[in-house]
């Protein structure tokens, strides 16, 4: 277990300078995520162009893993349609939870999250934003919880 695996430079950069941070108002869809274990909260705002996410922002307060993961996610999904986003979510989920999974080339910068799986207590930090985005795309405005 090496801290540098968890806190890679990409993660630290996106924690210090989160991309797409803020609100979209009015948004086509919005969801709030909550991790009751650590108190992290974040909101995801989406503008849709048909099936495609035309713009996305997030705001909230969380740990470095949670903030960086959300920042990386917004960069990765912007411009993609729902199907592509769902495929990406599945790949990220496998990356965070399966020890044998190799970083898929399609993941791009998201591969920086692969160190998280060595820290099981932190997997929920990285996945909260994805569950929240999923809720925004599937059900419209809602609140999701990691518990």
């Amino acid at each position, binding site marked *: *277990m090496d*801290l540098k695996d*968890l*806190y890679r430079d990409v993660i*630290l950069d996106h*924690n210090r300078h989160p991309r797409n941070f803020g609100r979209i108002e009015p948004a086509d869809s919005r969801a709030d995520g909550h991790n009751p*274990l*650590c*108190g*992290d*909260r974040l909101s995801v705002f989406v503008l849709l162009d048909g099936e495609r996410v035309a713009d996305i922002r997030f705001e909230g*307060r*969380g*740990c*470095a*893993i*949670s903030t960086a993961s959300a920042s990386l996610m917004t960069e990765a999904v912007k411009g993609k349609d729902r199907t592509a986003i769902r495929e990406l979510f599945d790949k990220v989920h496998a990356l965070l939870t399966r020890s044998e999974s190799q970083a898929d080339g399609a993941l791009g910068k998201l591969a920086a999250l692969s160190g998280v799986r060595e*820290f099981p*207590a*932190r997997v929920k*930090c990285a996945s909260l934003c994805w569950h929240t985005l999923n809720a925004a795309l599937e059900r419209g405005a809602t609140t999701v919880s990691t518990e």
Partner: protein
Amino acid sequence: MAANVSLAAPPPFDAERVRRDFPILDTMVNGRPLVYLDSAASSQRPLAVLRAVEDYETHSHANVHRGVHALSQAATAAYEGARERVRRFINARSAREIIFVRGTTEAINLIAQAWGRPRLRAGDEILISALEHHANIVPWQMVCEQTGCTLQVAPINRRGELQLEEFLGLLSPRTRLVALAHVSNALGTVLPVKPLIEAAHAHGAVVLIDGAQAVPHARLDVRALGADFYAFSGHKLYGPTGIGVLYGREELLAAMPPWQGGGDMILTVSFAKTTYNELPWKFEAGTPNMSGAVGLAAAMDYLEGLGVEAIAAHEQRLLQLATAELARLPDIEIIGTAAHKASVLSFTMKGVHPHDLGTILDAEGVAVRTGHHCAMPVMTFFGLPATARASFGCYNTEGDVASLVQALGKAREVLA
């Protein structure tokens, strides 16, 4: 207290020797020696406790209060002997006032449902403080829903101290029950419970004290304190999990209906009428946690062997040292600066989320609690999602404080 005749200073508290009684402290974590600073969440168990539990399980186990055979009698003697041990430890008048429960949470729920629910009604008030653990909030909210009574909350100040005037101002003839932490688990604040109990009694209210964080750090004398109910857990007192104590004044317990029904809590059962057992068994339906009770009694023997006051003095030295060390770090903010604290130190590091701090400290072998500490209203009051919390027990040393400070430096290096 003994007469003041000894000229020799008491021997200094030897935490290094105490450490040797706790085998788990030899654990290596991430290639480093464990520095355990999470005793407020759960303390570790000394060999004396581990051996007492093993001895009970190896030589004395059968069901209690049921059989005439030798082992059942041995188990009953061990279990009831543990009850008497608890009575002496807290100086209760009678062993009938000692109810074994799973822990503090169950004790509070028992009072909420068996004392509160049958008595409270719309217009009545329950008074708690803004410092409470969820276990001393939610059971009362449930009773309020069930009975229509109202929950009042006495505020705290920025140091994390109860605001006494506001507390006193909230007491009224409507106040039926006051439920207070003796020591705040999130901040370490020690509440002046004795005068608070007296003030509540002056208004005719019954008082429950949540002593989960207090009993490990100070001599408890329930009679001197005057509490009507007092609850604590074994696993924060160097004993096993799944065992705790509800102390209640006998006349109050006797007037309460049972909480749970089942075996052991009855005298006779027929389909027409069941008569309930006497105290304390009326509140102990089903087979109890005998090995837990035995382990808790052994923990009390162990603590009295070390000296509860000596442990408290040692922990206060560590708390003061750690407070001074952390206060020198410009990026650390100590949360909870009450004048009177038990050995809990809650803090945040500028630019570093407590969750990241916890992970980095863990990589250095340092175990602290991070999160809201089951006290979300306290976190909300300070405008924080979470804090890191170091807590000290009898086995912690000045070296542990140094390890904490060093690990904080590592966190700064990685993240800030």
